[in-house]
């Protein structure tokens, strides 16, 4: 079992209660800012100490409150990539890479040279971190981690401080650099796109608690819980009132849903992604919503429509989002705005 984490920690009013296991070599932790995902990562690295629980990595227990065991971060062999890279400002690139290396001078020097070469940092070895670009800093930070061959690497929101253009590039670069790495990598992020691209398995956190974990693709397809669906990017939610096994009233959308599959009794919400609506011209079909536009927002590659829900109290309810990609505008222009939006059954998410 590469990673098993079961920890609790209370800080003021905030209560961290994390519980997950994973065998995947690329694990993602998704959660909103301040949900405790960085705290979780720091606990795994040994920088923070949980109040109670257990952390096992590759069959080795690094923390166990029951056995009063807390391995020092120095001995855990876990690399940590900080959001600001935390390069040592008074050391050169070469010194930064060599900072954690053991062994004699010759060996260290050779290792530094290897790292400089494989991370394309040749010629920069005598520069200071402040003289490097963001991409170069990331490479130095990663080279510094890789130099001492950790068993596991933790990435703490590696791209969230970057502008969009740089973010795409650095993400590409990071994937390439990690390609040959055999150990486990855990990435923490609030960005669903980053996480989706990166991870095989996913842990979703909300207010200090792990609410779901499993294969990334499965969770994005069927989040199971409302908060998980929201974090994977679902925009529209409605309370659901079950009428019978196949019918339910979506209270916040003001429509009735009829599904072929059975609606389990413990389902309380329906979720629907803003890109998945199918426009309908003419007569109303099943699972349709009347199109009455409240607001339109234009984006370079998308148009966002905000639609009133049906029913009498619609003014008080949250508007429904319908996102149309640029490729589909033409169709709307030619045929005019549709009369209804259909929610295809397979896209309706049933949530707890």
């Amino acid at each position: 079992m590469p990673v098993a984490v079961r920890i609790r920690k209370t800080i003021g009013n905030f209560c961290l209660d994390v519980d997950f296991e994973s065998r995947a070599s690329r694990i993602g932790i998704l959660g909103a800012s301040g949900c405790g995902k960085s705290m979780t990562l720091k606990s795994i690295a040994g920088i923070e100490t949980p109040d109670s629980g257990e952390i096992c990595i590759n069959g080795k227990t690094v923390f166990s409150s029951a056995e009063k065991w807390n391995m020092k971060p120095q001995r855990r062999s876990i690399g940590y990539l900080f959001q600001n890279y935390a390069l040592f400002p008074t050391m050169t690139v070469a010194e930064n890479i060599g900072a954690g290396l053991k062994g004699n001078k010759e060996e260290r020097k050779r290792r530094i040279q290897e790292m400089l070469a494989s991370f394309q940092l040749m010629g920069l070895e005598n520069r200071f971190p402040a003289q490097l670009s963001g991409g170069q800093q990331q490479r130095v930070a990663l080279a510094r981690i890789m130099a001492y061959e950790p068993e596991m690497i933790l990435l703490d929101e590696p791209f969230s401080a970057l502008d969009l253009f740089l973010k795409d590039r650095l993400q590409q670069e990071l994937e390439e650099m990690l390609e040959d790495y055999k150990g486990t990598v855990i990435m923490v992020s609030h960005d669903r796109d980053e996480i989706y691209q990166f991870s095989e398995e996913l842990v979703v956190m909300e207010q200090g608690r792990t609410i779901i974990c499993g294969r990334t693709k499965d969770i994005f397809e069927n989040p199971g819980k409302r908060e998980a669906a929201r974090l994977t990017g679902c925009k529209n939610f409605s309370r659901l009132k079950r009428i019978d096994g196949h019918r339910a009233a979506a209270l916040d959308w003001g429509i009735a849903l009829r599904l072929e599959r059975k609606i389990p009794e413990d389902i309380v919400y329906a979720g629907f992604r803003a890109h998945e609506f199918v426009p309908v011209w003419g007569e109303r079909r099943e699972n349709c919503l009347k199109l009455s536009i409240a607001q339109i927002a234009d984006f370079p590659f998308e148009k966002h429509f905000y639609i009133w829900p049906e029913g009498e109290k619609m003014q008080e309810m949250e508007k429904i989002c319908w996102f149309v990609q640029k490729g589909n505008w033409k169709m709307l222009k030619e045929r005019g705005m549709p009369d209804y939006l259909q929610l295809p059954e397979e896209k309706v998410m049933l949530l707890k």
Partner: protein
Amino acid sequence: MIEILKELDWSPLFISLKTGVTATFFSFFLGIFAAWKVVGAPVGKKAVLDGILTLPMVLPPTVSGFFLLLLFSRRRPLGMFLYDNFNIKVVQTWAGCVIAAMVIAFPLMYRNARAAFEQLDVNLIYAGRTLGMSERKILWKIVIPSAGPGIASGTVLTFARALGEYGATSMLAGNIPGKTGTISQKIAMVIQDGDYQSAGIWTAVVLCIAFVVIALLNVISGRKIKNVRRW
């Protein structure tokens, strides 16, 4: 005028400088060590430690001197122990000068170092730990270099304070010409004798030193150190 300068006994200057340098040397390491410990301590312990370490700066120097005198007197345990086992006398000796100056000036070093440490990006220390660096290596290779300007200005201030120390020194070390007679004590003495000329000369010397110290401080804090930029 030159005649007067030639005949002047310069020993107070050397005693003061020697005391200042020695006291600064010890305060430097002790101050950094104390700051490092206090920054890492839990909140309650931090408050108590900080109070104890800063106290000598807040108390009137004569009060600190009185405590030191009680502590090191040869009629009391510590003084007795030092004298019997190591033949060290503190009261009325140059060692007393150094200890008095150190106790009074140490808080300046400690406070400056602590302020510099607290401004440090804590992730640097975390990074050091996850990279397998020992705590001592983190202190010497990461923390102190990154906190360089703060530590340097602390050192200069400590030196200045140690150089001018009067109250505690006169209590503990006394004013023995050529042995424990520092500049500050010399000035106080000659003024009591009505010798305003000597007082003037020594005042001028002190002014020169003070000016150099302040200038040095400005050079240090004004220097744009490229690689100590914070993000």
